[in-house]
């Protein structure tokens, strides 16, 4: 049974085709790393699965149904982070509001909601952090609160848009281990967008590469090869494996951010 099924899907934004005729099937319980250069369409793909972005042609099913806004089966961690406004609010209140914020009414939360928030905070080990205003938290600490927000309402699918951004290697490893453990114990399907493939090597089942409107999905050994990536990028790509790490290298400066860095 598939969690997400895209068949010959084309997605356009502002009149430009971002993803062209892509077919991708993601099984339930899979942990899929989503990679690709800036502007490849990782965020766009997530927004489409969330029902925020219509598809131009093809067929897309999320748990066997058409995508729809507010789908409670999906937990989402946006790339643009919360906290530009409301810096003085404590994390707990922000999460409690996120749990039922799409309903009309006063910003008060029921016992059930507060318990859900407390459980989500405990799952990411951020109970103490949530008592502090978010202005006083570090990037990694905020990331954990956002992960807790994505867990509210017990979703079956997590769309995590670059959770590793601005984290040091130790924090990266710890948040990946956390997400991996949660996915295992809860049977979650995870789409994890990232710019470096290496931190995900031990945990992901398959990798989805997006580039130039195309998509390639498969095991790391199948997709992350010189031949497969060169075809996807339409440029000469070299893949170097050394000391258990993978380095994707291209001649053009465009792809430099693709390179795994230690």
């Amino acid at each position, binding site marked *: 049974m598939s969690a997400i099924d895209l068949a010959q899907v084309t997605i356009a934004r502002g009149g430009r085709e971002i993803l062209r005729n892509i077919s991708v099937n993601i099984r339930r319980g899979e942990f899929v790393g989503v990679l690709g250069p800036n502007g490849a369409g990782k965020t766009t793909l997530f927004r489409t699965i969330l029902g925020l972005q219509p598809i131009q042609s093809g067929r897309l099913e999320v748990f066997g149904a058409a995508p729809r806004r507010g789908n409670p089966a999906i937990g989402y961690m946006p790339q643009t982070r919360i906290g530009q406004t409301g810096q003085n*609010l404590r994390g707990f209140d922000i999460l409690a509001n996120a749990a039922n914020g799409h309903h009309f009414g006063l910003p008060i939360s029921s016992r059930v909601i507060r318990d859900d928030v407390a459980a989500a905070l405990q799952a990411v080990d951020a109970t103490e952090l949530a008592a502090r205003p978010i202005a006083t938290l570090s990037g990694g600490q905020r990331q954990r609160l956002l992960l807790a927000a994505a867990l509210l309402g017990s979703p079956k699918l997590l769309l995590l848009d670059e959770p590793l951004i601005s984290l040091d290697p130790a924090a990266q490893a710890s948040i990946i281990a956390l997400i991996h453990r949660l996915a295992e114990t809860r049977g979650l399907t995870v789409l994890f967008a990232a710019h470096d493939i290496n931190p995900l090597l031990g945990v992901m089942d398959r990798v989805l590469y997006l580039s130039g409107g195309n998509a390639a999905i498969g095991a790391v050994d199948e997709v992350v090869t010189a031949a497969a990536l060169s075809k996807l990028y339409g440029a000469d790509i070299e893949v170097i494996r050394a000391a258990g790490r993978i380095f994707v290298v291209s001649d053009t400066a465009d792809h430099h951010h693709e390179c795994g860095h230690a």
Partner: protein
Amino acid sequence: MNAAMLEYDFMRHAFAAAGIVAILSGLVGYFLVLRGQAFAGHALSHVGFAGATGAILIGASPLAGMLAVTTLGGVLMGALGEKLAQRDIAIGVILTLSLGLGLLFLHFFTAYATQATALLFGDVLGVSVNTIYQLLLLTTVCLTILAVISRPLLFASVSPELAEAKGVNLRRQSLIFLGLAGLTTAACAQIVGVLLVFALMIGPAAAAQRLTTRVIPGLALSAGLALAQAWTGIALSYLTDWPASFWIAALSGGTYLLTLALIRN
């Protein structure tokens, strides 16, 4: 304090009108500050000045004129998008144009110089019973709308991408809220004048958000501070014979500066 002040009708009216408006301003202002739209609120009041003077020019009620244009201005700002409502330059230009336009309207009616002062700096001691009823109605409508939208509004303000994914219409929230802010600005201008709406709409809310990190206590504190400052300001005005708007502005600014000095984060 001096209980004798309550023997005068104009003082009772002043306390009633200021009390109603202060609570509305404190609550709506909380969201303005949270959303980083304080300056937009300030600009709306200047738009309201042009509306009020324009209304005087055509022989209509200044309050009606102000309400019409501030609401329209707010809704337009909301419709133009979340981003614009936070853009200082665009807002500053609207603000300046409105003030200039208001000045031009006044120019044609030099006899209304006192009315201009009342519009700009407020005239809380001159509030009529009729105005109190109007403010009460306005406040009831605004607070009802705010009660209905406050939860999704908070969500849209603090985590817009997440709110959108959960099905909140960001554009609609922004539009309704800035319309509300427009109405509140007009009400507020009746007490402290268009130039000093910051005193009731922004000062108490900003102080409250420094004093508590929680939402409901923050809202309550914001409304409570606005009420306390408005009433204390009027009482001090009675005792000193200085303008009430001055005292309210001083208390509002003073309280905020105090929270800055006392709480550092």
